[in-house]
């Protein structure tokens, strides 16, 4: 069924979210536009994981909110299973949301403290389908078992669980509608290192078991490298480099990706890594640098970087990067 669907499950094209900043409440003068997400394109194939990586403030979470339709994009398109969903309303939006669910970073604020676990996990089902109390109870028990929770704790409150268990509750909730795509926004960042591996393994098992597709957002490069088939590196609202995970990890071509991956801890404590240090802060998305957005911090900056926006360069193996360094005629000054 879904395996013979041609094309990607989720296709995002030139997605944009600009926030207008008005200076005053009464006079609607525009002080500027924050370009939180500015022309982002990627695809998530069926059963695969796309990693979205970048510093804080680069637009990862805004992208997730746009995909979940918690906010409306100001431009671009989102297609799910071949259907446009960026402007979907009413039944089309409801239908989309039964196929796309999410897990958020903070397992403390993502579970309603006044609801019992059974209510939290069962809510997507009871909100979408007419279902009897008994069926609901069975469905909740089943999905709790799937994520490794004891169904007997269904009548407890979230605060009685540890961070890792809470994240399992959040995952159980996201699975109960049997969605096809999960948006995982920093799913393990708030957890202890010892718990992280358990949750990541659980996510990988579930992916295999249900043929799920993941959009995994993280700033943790090890998590991204471990989990993803494809990686997209975001900088200041744009994708700097995107490609198969092996390509991005072993053969990064964009100076930002190179700097990012050089910051990973080596696998062995004695291992030495040639660390590329970036200086300065990420510039304000209210007033991004001209030309290449990374030029203010790039160790290999050239005069052309301030003048022209680097085009997307197609490299072998479906690897795309936006950098003037990859364009030989520019580098050689021809």
């Amino acid at each position: 069924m879904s395996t013979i669907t041609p094309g990607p499950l989720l296709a995002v094209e030139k997605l944009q979210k600009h926030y207008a900043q008005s200076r005053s409440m009464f006079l609607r003068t525009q002080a500027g536009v924050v370009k939180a997400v500015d022309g982002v394109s990627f695809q998530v194939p069926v059963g695969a994981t796309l990693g979205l990586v970048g510093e804080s403030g680069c637009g990862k979470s805004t992208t997730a909110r746009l995909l979940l339709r918690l906010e409306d994009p100001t431009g671009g398109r989102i297609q799910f299973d071949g259907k446009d969903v960026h402007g979907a309303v009413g039944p089309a939006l409801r239908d989309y949301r039964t196929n796309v669910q999410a897990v958020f970073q903070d397992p403390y604020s993502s579970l309603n403290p006044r609801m019992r676990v059974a209510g939290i996990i069962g809510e997507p089902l009871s909100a979408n389908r007419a279902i009897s109390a008994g069926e609901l109870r069975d469905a909740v028990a089943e999905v709790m078992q799937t994520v490794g929770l004891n169904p007997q704790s269904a009548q407890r409150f979230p605060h009685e669980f540890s961070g890792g268990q809470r994240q399992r509750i959040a995952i159980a909730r996201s699975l109960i509608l049997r969605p096809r795509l999960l948006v995982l926004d920093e799913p393990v960042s708030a957890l202890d290192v010892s718990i992280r591996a358990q949750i990541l393994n659980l996510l990988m098992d579930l992916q295999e078991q249900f043929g799920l597709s993941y959009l995994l957002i993280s700033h943790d490069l090890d998590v991204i490298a471990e989990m993803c088939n494809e990686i997209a590196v975001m900088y200041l609202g744009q994708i700097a480099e995107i490609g198969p995970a092996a390509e991005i990890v072993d053969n990064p071509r964009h100076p930002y990706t190179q700097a990012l991956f050089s910051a990973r801890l080596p696998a062995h404590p004695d291992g030495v890594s040639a660390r590329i240090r970036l200086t300065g802060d990420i510039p304000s998305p209210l007033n991004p640098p001209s030309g290449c957005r990374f030029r203010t911090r790039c160790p290999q900056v050239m005069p052309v970087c301030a003048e022209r926006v680097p085009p997307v360069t197609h490299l072998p193996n479906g690897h795309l990067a936006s950098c003037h360094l990859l364009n030989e005629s520019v580098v050689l000054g021809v």
Partner: protein
Amino acid sequence: MTWRSLRRFPWIPVLLLAPVVICGIAGPLLYPHDPTVVNLLAPRKPPAWLAGGDPAFLLGTDHFGRDLLSRLIEGARVTLMVAVLGVVVAAVIGITAGMVAGYFGGWIDNVVMRIVDVKMSIPTILLTILIGSAFGGGLVTIICSIIFVFWADYARVIRGETLSLRERGYVALAKVANCSHVRILLRHILPNLFATCMVLFSLQLGRALIVEAAITFIGLGIQPPASAWGLLIAEGRNYLATAWWIPTFAGLAITMTVLGTNLLGDWLRDALDPKLRQL
């Protein structure tokens, strides 16, 4: 009941409020005398334990010789009914308005909050006099005044709280799960406002008692020969130097009730928090 649950029981507020509530409910059964019967032969009798006191009039009598204890008990009934009714209706209006304003934002928020601002700019007493001259004095005036005065406080506090709650992860996830706005408001926002509402309710109840007493005091509230605590104070203020007991016991009753509701509110806030329930 285990020792622990005994120790956690809110003894002080319950002991403060129990007599008031019992008097309010069972009033007529408890009067030693009819609170409206005038006895001009025994005006301004001091409480029983003072020189000249009469054991038949435990807290003494007022300037018409009516039994003060009976009038106090009768007053509890009126006072409680007015305050509870007024604050409950104000709470329902204010919580609804605040929640809707905070959750939806935009022009709805602007309209609701500007109405609140307008309300806040009108002095309470002026508003009361206005309502009083429109409806005449009495129960309706007091209850309307309390509703008018208190709903805006609720709306403001609840709106602020809702603004922070609607940004929580579970609200976003509820939207992703296709929950309707009504469902999100009732299942995710309202239960998390509960503690705030209860604390606010108990504080408002205390303030409502005071407003009620003030309105009655200026003559727009409960009319004699009925009894209310504010009325007892108003009637007794001329005798403060010679018969201090007339206004004093009513004042004490108000203080006790306000203190009791405030303490009960504090206890409720902790007791209703599922995180603290297990401790």
